[in-house]
């Protein structure tokens, strides 16, 4: 068996409840103001997802996402502090911080998850300013108001909060 690398199986787990995580995203409002979503910050920046979304391969692959052999899929970190540390990067100063629940197939890493299905449960925009002020910086004025209105009316999904 010379030349063969030892095979180490990745442990498997099957949680009974969705997993919680934190991530950054760019808030977006559709042109007609009736829908809102989030744009990814790096790999998924070409895709816009809504409050509940399934991952697709950002590389255009037709495989299930996430895949062990590809870097696609939704990403999140385990702790709010890690997400806040990311938000300090100048490249992400226009991003908001999302709290999500992850479900479907997932891969657990030391600091976060890569996973197939996501539900946004909380949008954090008030890191330094009040929500309205920061949203005005992030988006056009009418979009900021519309985004808040969509969240508060529950049109983006029951239980979604904006702080």
């Amino acid at each position, binding site marked *: 068996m010379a030349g063969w690398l030892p095979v180490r199986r990745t442990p498997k787990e099957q949680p009974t409840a*969705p997993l919680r995580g934190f991530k950054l995203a760019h808030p977006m409002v559709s042109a007609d103001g009736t829908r809102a979503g989030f744009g990814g910050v790096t790999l998924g920046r070409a895709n816009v997802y809504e409050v509940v979304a399934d991952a697709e391969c950002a590389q255009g692959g037709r495989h299930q996402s996430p895949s062990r052999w590809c870097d696609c899929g939704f990403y999140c970190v385990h702790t709010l502090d890690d997400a806040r540390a990311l938000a300090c990067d100048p490249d992400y100063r226009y991003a908001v911080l999302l709290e999500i629940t992850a479900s479907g197939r997932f891969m657990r890493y030391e600091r976060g998850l890569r996973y197939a299905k996501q539900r946004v449960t909380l949008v954090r925009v008030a890191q330094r300013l009040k929500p309205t002020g920061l949203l005005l910086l992030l988006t056009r004025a009418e979009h900021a108001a519309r985004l808040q209105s969509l969240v508060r009316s529950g049109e983006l999904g029951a239980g979604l909060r904006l702080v």
Partner: protein
Amino acid sequence: MPYPTEAGMKLGKMLSVGEVVEHPSAEEPLVAEPATPIAERVSALPDTESAPVPAVAQASR
């Protein structure tokens, strides 16, 4: 790909893989189909017993 990155961040080593099913939560109650009594469903069916047999069916007998 043991060290995928997102937002310039390393997630670290892969520890495990798994699958979790998102159960319907209290925030999104399941919308149940309105229950219809069986008697109503049966009465809504067409009465095929007393209907005249189509001519084509008769000819093929």
